[in-house]
């Protein structure tokens, strides 16, 4: 647990970080970014909280089974979208031209249109869940492991 200043700043910064992460994830197919990058931004909020509040408090809110569940669901969404294209080929982008994210921009510079790219935005969400939960789980587990060690010394 760090000083009150650090904790207050962490409290203030976390919502901003999370919002930005969400933006990066959801706009991955139109502007630079994507599930991995946004997920990493999201997980950095967890790192901030871990540093500011210490693993003792954070691990009460971030349980490993729950995080595993989120990571699994993200991975399953991703591979499930791959399986969904199996009527044509595995990983076929079946939503291009469909009502879901189906707009097809003409070649060349385009205006920002969220409603494009078929399965890519959905895959971004799946990957983001996987990355967020995965990185957070790694950080929490490692923090707990190193605290136990300190107690034992």
């Amino acid at each position, binding site marked *: 647990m760090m000083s009150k200043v650090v904790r207050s700043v962490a409290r203030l910064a976390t919502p901003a970080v999370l919002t930005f992460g969400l933006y990066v994830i959801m706009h991955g197919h139109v*502007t630079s970014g994507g599930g991995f990058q946004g997920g990493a931004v999201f997980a950095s909020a967890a790192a901030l909280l871990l540093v500011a509040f210490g693993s003792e408090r954070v691990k009460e809110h971030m349980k490993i089974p729950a995080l595993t569940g989120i990571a699994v669901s993200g991975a399953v969404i991703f591979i499930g979208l791959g399986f969904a294209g199996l009527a044509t080929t595995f990983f076929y982008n079946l939503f291009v031209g469909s009502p879901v994210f189906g707009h097809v921009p003409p070649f060349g*510079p385009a205006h920002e249109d969220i409603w494009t790219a078929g399965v890519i935005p959905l895959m971004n969400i799946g990957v983001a869940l996987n990355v967020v939960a995965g990185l957070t789980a790694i950080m929490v587990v490692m923090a707990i492991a190193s605290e136990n060690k300190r107690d034992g010394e």
Partner: protein
Amino acid sequence: MSTIITNAPFIAVAALACVGIYIMLSQRNLIKIVMGITIFEAAVNLFLVSLGYRNDGIAPIFTNATGIHMVLPVPQAMTLTSIVIGVATTAMMLTLIVLIYRHTGETDAKKSRRVKG
């Protein structure tokens, strides 16, 4: 001589890789070995992403783009993949170091790694 200037990014990659390899081989501390590997990894990522640069190219994103002369997108995707894989392997290596430290109380390769066979 002119190759050295035009290919300066590749030479920087080679230099960085040599630094990483030197650290990897010369250090005894397990954490420092991992640092060496991470530097080597950074060199490889730099190599991949520099392979995709096209003179005066812009980022390969069509949204509000100013032209269509773009750098190559595939190296960027490969670098992204390689960075994520790097995070995964680093986490794995550090975890095993934590466990070795729990057993031996050492992160020194010479003392903790028993030589057998």
